[in-house]
């Protein structure tokens, strides 16, 4: 139909139908998306040009992959249901993993405690109080062997949320697999390995950007030769969103990080098509269902364009943005915590309608503690109900063609590209982080969001409206207070049992290599096989690389 006719009809509708109506019943005010953009009353063919279908959307599995990276999407195989878990000792976590596998979970996702993530042993004074708290405590290969006991690593794919010390944990995983008789080329899974977002949002950094990028490219290079089925990085927007960014900022900063990794690897002499296919992404699924669906679609289109046009990738696999999703932890409320089940269900729908490759659903009690077994099961069931009962996965990208979704996809893409341009002008993402630009943008969004809740402009059910008096929740998971002691005792035994001269020699070798340019992965694998601890390896690297100092902006 002629757009001019639609336009004049819409003007008439505005004037004759809407006008008198809202005089009597006014609309709600402040209808905005997460980027503070006003949302229109109605979207129509005027907001979306179908002539661009092939260039902007195309069919699933075809460039620019807006409608999905695979030709059949969930009609063939559902997304991987992957619940992030881990706490206490390796024994306890191993038990939880085996429970989840019997409940129909299809991949493992390991959470490590903070000392493990930041490269300290459990007996380091700085680890006090933190051992086994937000994840499992790993000091040496000994713990890792227990963690994966009776879990066949050639059959299960494992995702590890580990960044600064990713190189060490991957080395341990390879060593455990070898002990099970599984060679490195057979293992499947992902390490997060995304240091840039640690500087931006998550805070488990150790080294400055330069040596950190070197470790990452060392992993890229090693895996492209030895572990071809391993995803070497999960470029994460999740934590950027959790820190309070908008949807546009989430994908802009994440893609900016992705560009930086690709540049680093290319500068190190790797061919883009040799590693880009192993890059994966990790996004947040927030409450605004429609905005989130548009966000995922925009991200796919942007990445494809960047890989093709900027990096001159040739393989289609290099251009496909494959991503894991986690529902938004920051939307969970401590008040009336069962309501979180509904929030997670909506966020699950957003991720599935947005075409995610794998999904973690949060548990209802996570604003209060680590999730209990019951809560984790409900979270997993939420995914299963969406998959098996809701019908949304029976056709591909079902929201495409919606005037609103398509125009929002365009707008998010435009906003994110504007950020990318700004970041490029500042000298790239590392310079933008060092200048505090990215942190400041995010914090402003976070502050505005929080003030809207404070002023009741934004309603959070059960928090600033529909409140009730409620008794404390029972049955929360508690991490045993004695775990640090147990873990230290085990560490002490490991240190007595191992060949300490061999350990010293390997650490010396590692120091030399760190001072040079050689790939550190093989020596780190040797080190972990001799039961050298994470703290020992990290401390040597700290000595050579120095430590990162954050530019905190307030």
């Amino acid at each position, binding site marked *: 139909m002629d757009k001019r006719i639609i336009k004049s009809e819409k003007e008439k509708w505005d004037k004759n139908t809407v006008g008198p109506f809202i005089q009597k019943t006014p609309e709600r005010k402040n209808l905005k998306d997460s980027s503070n953009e006003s949302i229109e009353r109605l979207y129509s063919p005027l907001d979306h040009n179908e002539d661009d279908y092939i260039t902007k959307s195309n069919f699933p599995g075809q460039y620019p992959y807006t409608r999905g990276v695979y030709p059949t999407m969930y009609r063939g195989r559902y997304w991987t249901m992957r619940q992030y878990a881990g706490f206490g000792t390796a024994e306890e976590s191993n038990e939880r993993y085996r429970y989840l596998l019997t409940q129909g979970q299809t991949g493992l996702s390991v959470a490590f405690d903070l000392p493990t993530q930041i490269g300290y042993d459990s007996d380091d004074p700085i680890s006090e109080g933190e051992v086994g708290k937000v994840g499992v405590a790993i000091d040496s290969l000994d713990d890792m062997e227990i963690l994966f006991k009776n879990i066949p690593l050639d059959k299960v794919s494992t995702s590890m949320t580990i960044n600064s010390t990713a190189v060490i944990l991957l080395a341990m995983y390879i060593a455990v697999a070898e002990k099970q008789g599984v060679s490195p080329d057979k293992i499947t899974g992902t390490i997060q390995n995304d240091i840039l977002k640690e500087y931006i949002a998550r805070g488990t950094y150790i080294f*400055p950007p330069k040596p950190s990028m070197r470790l990452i490219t060392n992993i890229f290079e090693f895996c492209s030769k030895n572990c071809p089925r391993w995803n070497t990085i999960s470029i994460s927007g999740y934590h950027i969103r959790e820190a309070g960014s908008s949807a546009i900022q989430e994908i802009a900063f994440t893609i900016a990080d992705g560009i930086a990794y690709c540049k680093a690897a290319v500068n190190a002499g790797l061919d883009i098509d040799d590693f880009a296919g192993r890059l994966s992404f990790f996004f947040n699924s927030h409450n605004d269902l429609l905005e989130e669906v548009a966000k995922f679609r925009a991200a796919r289109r942007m990445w494809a364009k960047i890989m093709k046009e900027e990096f001159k990738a040739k393989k289609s696999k290099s251009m496909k943005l494959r991503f894991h999703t986690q529902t938004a932890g920051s939307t969970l409320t401590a008040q009336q915590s069962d309501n979180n089940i509904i929030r997670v269900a909506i966020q699950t729908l957003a991720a599935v309608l947005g075409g995610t490759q794998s999904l973690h659903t949060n548990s209802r009690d996570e604003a209060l503690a680590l999730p209990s077994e019951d809560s984790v099961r409900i979270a997993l069931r939420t995914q299963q109900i969406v998959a098996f009962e809701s019908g949304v996965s029976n056709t591909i990208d079902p929201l495409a063609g919606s005037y609103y979704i398509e125009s929002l996809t365009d707008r998010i893409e435009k906003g994110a590209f504007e950020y990318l341009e700004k970041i490029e002008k500042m000298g790239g993402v590392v310079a933008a982080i060092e*200048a505090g630009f990215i942190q400041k943008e995010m914090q402003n969004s976070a502050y505005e969001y929080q003030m809207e809740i404070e002023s009741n402009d934004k309603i959070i059910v059960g928090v600033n409206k529909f409140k009730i008096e409620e008794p404390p929740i029972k049955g929360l998971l508690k991490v045993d207070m004695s775990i640090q002691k147990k873990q230290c005792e085990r560490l002490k035994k490991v240190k007595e049992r191992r060949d300490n001269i061999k350990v010293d020699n390997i650490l010396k070798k590692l120091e030399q290599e760190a001072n040079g340019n050689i790939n550190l992965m093989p020596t780190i694998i040797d080190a972990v096989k001799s039961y050298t601890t994470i703290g020992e390896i990290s401390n040597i690297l700290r000595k050579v690389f120095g430590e990162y*100092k954050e530019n*905190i*902006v*307030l």
Partner: protein
Amino acid sequence: MTFPDKIVDGDIRSIARGISIVESGGIESDNLLNELYNRNCSYIIGVTGPPGAGKSSLINLLIDEFKHHFRKIAILAVDPSSPFTGGALLGDRIRMQQHAMSESVFIRSMASRGHIGGISGATKDAIKIVSAAGYDLVIVETVGVGQSEIDIVKLSDTTVLILVPGYGDEIQVMKSGIMEIGEVFVVNKSDKSGSEKLATTVKWLLKENYRNKSYLPPVILSSVTNNTGIEDIVKAVLNHKNYIEKNGIDRDKIQERIKDDINILLERKINEFIQHHLKYPENIEKWVNLVISKKSTPYEIIREIKDNMILDIREDI
């Protein structure tokens, strides 16, 4: 031990309290400063420069280097107060937090509390507190809003001005009048492009224009990221210290500061006296109304007040 004695003894809690007292002002502050006046003399370094020049990060590294030359170091870091709420986010300290546990380093964040000129009204009094407590080096970090930071020059023995490439070319450097401020010039972020050029420009400008013909400020390139230039800055400061001591400038500076203290106290007293005698709070509205109703003008009112005041003072005497 009395409270002032505890400060002199170096008790951290008392020093910190003392600074809060002088920040709050009033009679308690006067009494304390009276007790502690002339107790000790520290060397005072002012560090100034535009926001984002990396002042705090640089001071963080300078502390380690200055430790070789001074026994105890106090840092007073000034950040702006919000003109709307009076609140402040004091963020400089974050970058020096690694020294929090050092026994020879004392760090205090101060809000400007409405004072313009890059420092807070109480900064010079806070210096007296830490001096009395035996800190032989005091580093004052200014707000860093740019051109109006003249106060720091009066306050410090050596002023270090930190510049970064990207803020301004030659013209901006000249325009901003900052050439008058520094005795040691630092071009920070020397890893960034444009730093060499900026340093050359500043050197040339100083050579042509510097106010003092017997001392030419050095221009030092530094980088926090690469930890370079730090020793050079310390050396330059010590050089300047040497210079002012040799030429008696340090004594002049002390005289100036005492004069300043007397002036400020005098002004305040005169102000209080006038306010009291004129019953200012009760009268101001009356005066305004007189002007609005066209019965008088501000000039007439003042003339009248002046005449009456002289009578009042005579009566007082």
